């Protein structure tokens, strides 16, 4: 697999991030730097702010304080460039119940570009028999697989994936590990949250523990 994005080195950096949920401080003064070819695993107990941190890094949530930089530029000031660089798979799967699995991916591709083959991506995720099934017939694990298939449609230097292992079986987990590995070896970077032990010890893995 060739790195399809022209990747010199990229850098995701957060400075002095602070987030509140209601009146509760989730984290403050959070600093992190992630370079090409690195994985950041965010862990911590339920409610520690993992999803909030990922949404902040993706630019969906504005931090109370601090700033997220992509290649040295604040992400809120060059949204378009950051959107080009980012593949985000959130906590919610974003799979429309009324569309078939394949239609879901085709629409996503229209929105984000990319020249990956949707059928190929779904076959890779083990959904070859569900291609033409509507979203509402999928199990939770299959839905997650379909959501993760989006990662294969468009090469992007940065992946932010919230709980990629949730609801996946053993093969699914291994598959996600494999995708992450390929992304990192191609010079990309990955931010993910997980309660589980991540079997990626062969990769440059940074750990961030929230709520301790």
């Amino acid at each position, binding site marked *: 697999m060739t790195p399809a*994005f*022209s990747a010199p080195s990229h850098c995701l950096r957060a400075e002095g991030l602070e987030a509140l949920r209601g009146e509760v401080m989730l984290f403050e003064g959070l600093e992190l730097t992630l370079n090409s070819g690195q994985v950041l695993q965010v862990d911590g107990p339920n409610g520690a702010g993992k999803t909030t941190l990922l949404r902040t890094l*993706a*630019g*969906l*949530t*504005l931090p109370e304080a601090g700033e997220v930089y992509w290649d040295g530029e604040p992400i809120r000031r060059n949204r*378009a460039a950051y*959107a*080009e660089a*980012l593949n*985000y798979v*959130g*906590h*919610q*799967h*974003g*799979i*429309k*119940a*009324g*569309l078939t699995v394949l*239609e879901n991916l*085709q*629409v*996503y591709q*229209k*929105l*984000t*570009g*990319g*020249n990956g083959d949707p059928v190929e991506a779904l076959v890779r995720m083990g959904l070859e028999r569900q291609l033409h099934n509507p979203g509402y017939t999928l199990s939770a694990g299959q839905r997650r697989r379909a959501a993760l298939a*989006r990662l294969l449609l*468009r*090469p992007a230097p940065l992946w932010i994936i919230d709980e990629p292992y949730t609801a996946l079986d053993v093969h699914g987990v291994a598959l996600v590990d494999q995708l992450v590995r390929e992304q990192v070896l191609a010079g990309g970077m990955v931010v993910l949250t997980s309660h589980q032990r991540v079997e990626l010890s062969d990769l440059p893995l940074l750990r961030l523990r929230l709520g301790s």
Partner: protein
Amino acid sequence: MNQPAMLPAFFGLLRRDLLLAYRARGETINPLVFFVLVASLFPLATSAEPNLLRTLAPGVIWVTALLATLLSMDQLFRGDYEDGALEQLVLSPQPLALMALAKIVAHWLVTGLPLTIVAPLLAMFLQLPGEAYGALMLSLLCGTPVLSAIGSIGAALTVSLRRGGILLSLLILPLYIPVLIFAASAVDAAAHGLPVTGQLLLLAALAVGALTLAPLATAAALRISLD
């Protein structure tokens, strides 16, 4: 870099929404059913006196069309919000306002346009004089896109609230009033054989303005709602 083109994205999202609307036909025709039911109850509830109905007709048809649109507005972004598709939209490299416009156009195609098409039927129930049919259709054709466009701002602002329906109505109903006044007055004037060009041009101007500006406001509101 593989910069995704804007037009395929626009039509991709438009087609997606139309497809979803088609597959959920039962729900999609709700506003239309409401429109027909309510407007056809008026002759029963008031009187079959043609002169009275003729006086009421422009107002009844327009108020009902407005409420039918309002009822459907809450659903505009709700589904996408709940399943996470909205996050994907916001994070896609497309201008969010353009995506909002695609959703507005899709909404109009499945609510405003059908309302416009069945309106002559209701006009017949309500004894509207023949010469006012053209003005009625044109006023709906220009007015309903304004309703969809302005409604999308309210829908975007209230999408993250669990019970946003009432708030949505309170927010956008006042903004619908100008459309209601000009449109009903156009139909009324036509029924009396008066010229209606002024009102229709104003409605058309409102439509152009709303379709240009509302997507920008909707995009900003969506970002706030997702925060």
